[in-house]
């Protein structure tokens, strides 16, 4: 143990997920820690400082939320190591504050008993007493304290009620470690604990004789109804999707305007040259193109925060559990995958709400197969060409729907196979899904949550994506050519040469060297394909994107192989569509996957698998189609 006369005493906060542990930590330390339980992510121990009423400094450790101390998950292992003083640079805590949800004592006290069994001095923070009282629970903190042999402090951490009383309990002289009397009752410790808790709750946390229907029960009667529940969920998620997909366009437009203004300003202060091109075409376009997604990320996390904080997310996960189980995933994978239709980046980041690390990795793996908005310009170029019609017909809408459906179906099949290969979870996962009572959203928590995610994204855009943008600019620029023609410059650049080199590789898919070059440039971001094709097919850019695409389509129809055959046949266009559906062509998503999975290896294999799969499917369709005479 730490020496109380020299170093500040160590107080460890431990509790089940959703017990209000991080809210209490923030209330004690004034720190800006994020509230929420993301198993496999928040496995680090956060620390802060607080003071006793007598001004004595205390160091507070916020341990990951966990259900037990069996060390069967990363969360539990870190928590147990912290309590045993096994974390690097940390000693055994002087006092453990067990944070429990007073309305759910039967489950939460299990962990408290395990901490007492370790022989550590404890204080029980009986949090959310307001919720417990509203359900009609009659709490007797004095009786609880007497039976457990530890101080019990009733509190409501989100309203800062009981904080002073808790600080009183943290001062000297500290409580002694209690005896775990229940541990001798039967040979099975789990059974002994359950029997002790049942007895304890009968004495000190009595539920009313008749079940009182709470407001949460009444809301759940609608929101968990087999029919109305689904309708409500579809409406809620449609609103989220609509907001991400369309409402975010307004601030996205502002960012795009800012990006254009910055490029113009760079053009005005620097004369024509490499540095100007690097800054305007490489850095501003590359980083700006990714920062454009910031409004979508902010909106998505605002909604996630709102849904989680209010308690609805657990209901949605419950409703979707059976559907997602067909893909080997849990209901919590639904929202990240759904958001990926707008953009895979916020979708991948949203997987933090998934408790199971394996479910989370699989969801991250398949998220880029949900057809994101960046693919739309490519589809808008190819689909009318395929159907030989103008943009906006119902046939095109049908093809687009088919593309979305096929991408989703393929993703679910891959998820099922991959999830099976990863094996069963050792953590309880969705089998222990709690339905917390509905609460008023904690806006401070939501805004902190949104701010954290936005900052993480901006940091990524400012480092890895900045670097990748510079390197891609170099590949498109060097070696330099004396010609002022952009198409010649791109064709003679490193990426143009790679395009020629890989022509034998892409030819079996029905693509020529120019398409190969455009596909290579699209590995930075899919939408770049259209602008690269415009450059390579010498289409002058105007303010009217639809008109530009129409001119480009005319050029593509006219393009021929050296033997006079048209390059763009229905078969090669289907092959191209399939390639764009399946290939991993987004450097920003790869960078975010590496960060969220904690492994560049995972991001690399995702890239190899998706791109390899895209190649194989395109190859099979094109060659198979040719054999069948198409």
């Amino acid at each position, binding site marked *: 143990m730490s020496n109380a006369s020299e170093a500040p005493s160590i107080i460890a906060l431990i509790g089940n997920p959703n017990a209000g542990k991080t809210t209490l930590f923030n209330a004690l330390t004034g720190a800006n820690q994020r509230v929420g339980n993301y198993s496999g992510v928040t496995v680090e121990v956060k620390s802060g400082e607080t003071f006793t009423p007598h001004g004595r400094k205390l160091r507070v450790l916020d341990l990951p939320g966990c259900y037990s101390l069996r060390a069967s998950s*990363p969360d539990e292992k870190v928590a147990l190591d912290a309590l045993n003083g096994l974390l690097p640079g940390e000693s055994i805590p002087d006092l453990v504050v067990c944070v429990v949800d007073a309305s759910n004592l039967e489950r939460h006290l299990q962990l408290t008993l395990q901490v007492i069994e370790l022989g550590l001095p404890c204080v029980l923070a009986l949090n959310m007493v307001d919720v417990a009282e509203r359900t009609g629970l009659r709490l007797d903190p004095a009786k609880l304290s007497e039976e457990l042999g530890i101080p019990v402090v009733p509190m409501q951490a989100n309203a800062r009620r009981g904080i002073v009383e808790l600080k009183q309990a943290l001062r000297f002289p500290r409580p002694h470690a209690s005896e775990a009397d229940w541990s001798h009752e039967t040979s099975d410790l789990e059974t002994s604990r359950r029997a002790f808790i049942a007895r304890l709750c009968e004495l000190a946390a009595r539920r009313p004789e008749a079940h009182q229907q709470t407001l949460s029960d009444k809301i759940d009667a609608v929101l968990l109804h087999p029919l109305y529940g689904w309708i409500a969920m579809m409406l809620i998620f449609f609103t989220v999707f609509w907001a991400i997909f369309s409402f975010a366009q307004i601030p996205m437009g502002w960012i795009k305007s800012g990006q254009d203004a910055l490029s113009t300003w760079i053009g005005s202060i*620097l004369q024509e040259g490499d*540095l100007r091109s*690097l800054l305007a075409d490489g850095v501003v376009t590359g980083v700006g193109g990714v920062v454009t997604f910031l409004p979508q990320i902010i909106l998505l996390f605002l909604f996630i925060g709102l849904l989680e904080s209010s308690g609805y997310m657990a209901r949605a996960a419950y409703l979707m559990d059976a559907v997602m189980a067909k893909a080997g995933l849990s209901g919590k994978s639904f929202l990240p995958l759904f958001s990926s239709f707008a953009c895979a980046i916020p979708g991948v980041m949203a997987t933090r709400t998934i408790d199971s690390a394996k479910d989370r990795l699989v969801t991250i793996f398949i998220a880029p197969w949900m057809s994101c908005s960046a693919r739309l310009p490519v589809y808008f170029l190819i689909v009318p060409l395929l159907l030989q019609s103008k943009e906006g017909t119902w046939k095109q809408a049908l093809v687009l729907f088919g593309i979305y459906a096929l991408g989703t179906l393929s993703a679910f099949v891959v998820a099922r196979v991959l999830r099976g290969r990863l094996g069963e979870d050792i953590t309880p996962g969705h089998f222990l899904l709690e339905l917390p009572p509905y609460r008023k959203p904690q806006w401070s928590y939501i805004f902190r949550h949104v701010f954290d995610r936005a900052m993480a994204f901006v940091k990524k855009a400012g480092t890895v994506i900045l670097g990748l943008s*510079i*390197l891609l600019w170099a590949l498109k620029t060097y070696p330099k050519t004396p010609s002022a023609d952009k198409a010649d410059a791109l064709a003679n650049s490193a990426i143009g040469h790679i395009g020629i080199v890989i022509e034998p590789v892409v030819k079996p898919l029905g693509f020529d060297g120019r398409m190969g070059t455009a596909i290579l440039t699209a590995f930075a971001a899919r939408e770049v394909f259209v602008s690269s094709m415009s450059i390579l097919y010498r289409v002058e850019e105007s303010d009217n994107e639809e008109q530009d695409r129409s001119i480009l389509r005319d050029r593509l129809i006219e393009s021929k192989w050296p033997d006079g055959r048209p390059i763009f046949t229905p078969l090669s266009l289907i092959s191209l569509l399939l390639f764009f559906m399946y290939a991993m062509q987004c450097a920003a998503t790869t960078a975010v996957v590496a960060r969220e999975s904690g492994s560049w290896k995972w991001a690399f294999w995702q890239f190899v698998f998706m791109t390899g799969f895209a190649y194989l499917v395109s190859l099979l369709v094109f060659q198979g189609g040719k054999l069948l005479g198409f």
Partner: protein
Amino acid sequence: MNSDWQTFLAAAVVVSTLVVFAVRLARPKKKSGCRKNCGCGK
């Protein structure tokens, strides 16, 4: 700023970026708290 200076500075930025990436790739990785394949971010 004339064209020659711009060429030199742009090339310097590209080379610096390459060096930074190479150093980051070569740097030994820090072990995360949960050691292996748990899917935790750092």
